[in-house]
C-alpha cells in the first residue's frame, strides 16, 4: 500500500483496484452515498458519492483510485449538489418520515440531516405507487423506493433468486418483483434473504416488528450517519477477515 492520493488535503493510501470510496472509508473518511454498499458491486446511480477528481465530477464508488489523484469531497459546493440530489429523491417519491417505520434507521433521512437539508425545495411529484402487503412476513412500500437497486443486487448475487428488478424508463422507472401477479407473496422471497435486510430506506419492511426499537433510540438517533456508516464498514471488514 505504498500508493496514495489526496482527499481534501489528506493523504489516503490505497491498494490496486480499490475505488476512491473504498480507500476513503478505510481511512475513516465518510463520503455520502445511497446506492453504494461495501458488500456489493457498485452501481453508480444515485450520484450522492460524487467527488471532484482533478477538478472533474465523478462518482467515487465506481472510479478506481490512482496515485496522485487530487480529490475533493467535503466541500460546500459538493455538499450543496448532494443536498439537491437528496431533495430530488424526496420529491420523486412519497416520503412521510414521521409516519415511517424506518425513521431513525433510514439512510435517506439520515443523509438529509447530514447534508443540512431543511426543506424539500422542489414541488412534490406525488406518484401513485400502491403498496404490496401480500407477503406474510414482509411489506413492500414502493412509495419510498429510491431505485438504488441494492435489493436487486442482493437477491441476484447473494440469494440467487432474482426476486427484484427495475422496469420502466425515466421517471417511470420502478421496482418490480419476480411473479406473474407482480405480488411478493407469489415469489420465493423469504424474510431470511439478504435482500430482506438491505433496503436503505423504508421499502422492504418486516411485518409485526414495528417500533421494536423506539424512536429516539434507533441507530441514526444515537449517532450521525457519518459515524455509523464508518463503524459498519469496519465491522463488516472484521467479519470478512
Amino acid at each position, binding site marked *: 500500500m505504498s500508493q496514495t492520493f489526496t482527499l481534501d488535503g489528506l493523504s489516503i493510501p490505497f491498494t490496486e483496484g480499490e475505488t476512491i470510496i473504498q480507500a476513503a472509508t478505510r481511512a475513516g473518511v465518510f463520503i455520502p452515498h445511497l446506492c453504494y454498499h461495501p458488500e456489493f458491486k*457498485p452501481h*453508480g*446511480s*444515485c*450520484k*450522492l458519492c*460524487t467527488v471532484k477528481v482533478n477538478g472533474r*465530477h465523478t*462518482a467515487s464508488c*465506481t472510479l478506481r483510485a490512482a496515485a496522485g489523484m487530487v480529490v475533493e469531497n467535503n466541500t460546500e459546493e459538493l455538499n450543496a*449538489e448532494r443536498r*439537491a*440530489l437528496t431533495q*430530488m*429523491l424526496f*420529491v*420523486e417519491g412519497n416520503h412521510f418520515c414521521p409516519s415511517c417505520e424506518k425513521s431513525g434507521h433510514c439512510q435517506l433521512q439520515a443523509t438529509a440531516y447530514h447534508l443540512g437539508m431543511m426543506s424539500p425545495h*422542489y*414541488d412534490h*411529484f406525488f406518484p401513485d405507487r400502491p403498496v404490496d402487503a401480500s407477503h406474510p412476513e414482509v411489506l413492500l412500500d414502493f412509495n419510498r423506493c*429510491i*431505485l438504488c437497486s441494492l435489493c436487486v443486487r442482493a437477491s441476484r448475487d447473494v440469494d440467487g433468486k*432474482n*426476486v*427484484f*428488478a*427495475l*422496469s*420502466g*424508463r*425515466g*421517471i*417511470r*422507472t420502478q421496482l*418490480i*418483483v*419476480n*411473479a*406473474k401477479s407482480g405480488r411478493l407473496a407469489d415469489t420465493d422471497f423469504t424474510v431470511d434473504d439478504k435482500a430482506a435486510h438491505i433496503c436503505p430506506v423504508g421499502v422492504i419492511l418486516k411485518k409485526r416488528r414495528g417500533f421494536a426499537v423506539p424512536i429516539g433510540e434507533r441507530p441514526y438517533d444515537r449517532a450521525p450517519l457519518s459515524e455509523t456508516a464508518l463503524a459498519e464498514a469496519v465491522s463488516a471488514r472484521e467479519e470478512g477477515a
Partner: protein
Amino acid sequence: MMMQANDRQSEAVAGVVDRVVAHYRGDPSCMVQILREIQEARGWIEPAAIDRLQTVLAVPRTKIEGVAGFYSFFHTRPVGRYRLLFSDNITDRMQGSAALLERLCSALWIEPGKVSEDGLVSVDRTSCTGLCDQGPGLLVNLRAIGRLTVERIDRIVELVRDEVPLADWPAEFFVIEDNIRRADILLATPFAPGDALRAAQARVPSDGLAAANLRSWREGLPTGLGGPAAMLDEIKRANLRGRGGAGFMTGLKWEACRNAPLKAGQQRFVVCNADEGEPGTFKDRVLLTTRADLVFEGMTVAAYAIGAQRGFLYLRGEYRYLLDDLNAVLERRRRDGLLGSDIGGIPGADFEIEIHVGAGAYVCGEESALIESLEGKRGTPRNRPPFPVTNGYLDQPTVVNNVETFAAAALIALKGGDWYAAIGTRHSAGTKLLSVAGNCSRPGIYEYPFGVSIRQVLADCGATDPQAVQVSGPSGVCLGDAEFDRCIGFEDIPTAGAFTVFDRSRDMFEVARNYVHFFQHESCGFCTPCRVGTSLLKNLMDKLHQGCGSPYDFGEIEKLNQLLQTMSHCGLGHTACNPVLDTIARFRPAYERRMRQQEFAPAFDLDRALAAARQMTGRDDAGAHFLDQEA
C-alpha cells in the same frame, strides 16, 4: 368453449415464442430481438408470451419484464391493431402535426395515448422519427408516412375504420424521399461493392514482407505490419474523426481495439451505430437507403483492420421499415463473397453482419447503452472505464462507430488516407452530411467539406429570414444570427448532423420547451440527477408556458442545469439543459414575455385543476371555469 379458446390462444402464443426463440438459438442475449419479433407476430407482449419465454429461455421473469418495460415500442398491455405514432419533434409541430393529431383523434373518437374500446386503433406521440425534411410524419405499425396533410389524415381515418390491411394502403403514403440536395464524396463517389475491400487488400503484399507499392514504407517492414495494419495506417493518416458527434479519432479507436488482449474464446466486434435518434437528424437514414453497400463495406474494412469476425448494425426502431431492404443487401453481399468466409478469396478473412433493431430509446445511441441493448438488456449507459474498445459486446473488444464514419472509412480504403485528409480543414478532415430542416425552401441532405459556414448552408437551403439555427439537435448548440459566419467543424461547431432552421416567426421558448420534453421522455432513469432533474426542468418550462413564470424560475433552471451537467451519468443528462441555456442567452425576450410575475408564483392553477371535473361532467361553459382577476 371458453376453455378451448384459451387453449388455442396459448398454443398460438407458444408456437410464436418457440419459433422466435429457436431462430435466435435460445440465446437470452438476443432478448430485444426476441421480444420485437414476438410483438410483431402477436401485436403485443402478452403475459402468456412472457410465461413461455421464461420457460424456454430459462431466465427470470424480472429480466424479461425489465427489458420490455424500458423501450417505448414494446407493449406489455394490449394496443390497437393500428398503432399510429405521431413524430413529435419541433419541426413536425411547425409543420402542423398537433392539429393533424387532433383531427385524427376526433375523427376516430379516441384520446392520444389510449386504445379504442374495440381494440382497433391507438394514437400517440413519439420522439422524432427522422422525417423532418418531409414532415409532419407518423409511424403506423412502425412503417413511416411523411408529408401528412388534412387529406392524408382523412384517408387514414377511412383506411383504419374499414380495417384495410396495411399492405393495401396507398403505396405513395410510404414513399420516403432521399432529398439529396448537395452531394460530395460520400454521396457521389462511384463505387461498386467490393471496390474498397479489393483496394485495401491490394495495398499490401500477401506475405506482408515486400511492399507492393511504395505509398507507405511501413508496409514493407517484415514486422507483421501487413494488410490490416496498413489499412489502420490509412485511417490514421486520413485524420478521420467519428461522425456521431464526439469526434474521437477513428484510427486510435480501431487501434485500441486491435491491440486489446483477447481472453480464451473471445473475439473482436464491429458495431455500426444506426440509432439515429437526435431530433432533426436523418442523414443515416439516407445513407442506409442510398449507400448501404458503402456502409457495410466500411464495416468490413474495419473488421479487416482490427481482426473482427462479427459485426452488428444497430438500427433504430423507427427505421424498422428499412430492415428488409438492408437484409437483402447483406444477402447479396454474401452471395458475392463480400461477407461470410474467406472474403475476397483470402483464407481466414471471415466476417458476418447481423442487423439488430432497436425499440424506441434515444439513450441507446450512447455506445455503451447500445451495447447493453445489443446484449438484450435495458439500454442503460455503463460505468466507464472500461471502454468498449477493450470491454464491449459481451465484455469483448468492440469498435462502435456511426453510419457515416463507416461510409467514410470505405472511401479511405478505396482512395487512401492522404486523399481524404486533403478534404475539409486541418482539424476536420473530409466531409459532413447535414440534415437540413425547418424554415427553408429546400430541406434535405447536404454534404459539404468541413469548414462550411452556417451562412452558406442557410443560403443554399433557401432559408428566409432565419432567426436561429439549432446545430446537432437539442444536445448541440443554438446559434443566433450574430453567429452565422461560424463554421461547421471540430474546431468551431462540431455536429452529428442536424441543422434545424427557425425563422423570425418562431417562438424560441417553445422550441426549447419541446426539446426539454424530449429529454425528459428519453432519460433512461438510471441516475438521480437526470431522472428527476429532467422532470423538474420540464415542469419549470411548462410553468413558464402556462404564464406562472417568475425570475425565481429562471434561477432554478440555471441551478438545475449546473446539476445536470456535473452530476449526470451520461451525455443525455449533461446536455439536457443546453437548449434552454442557449435560448435564454440569445432569445431572452421569448422568456421575459412569460415573466408575468416579478415575485414567485406557484405552478398550481385552480382552473387547470378543474379540467378533470369538467371532462367528467361534460361541461365546458363559463360557469365551469374558475375566473381569476385578469379574466
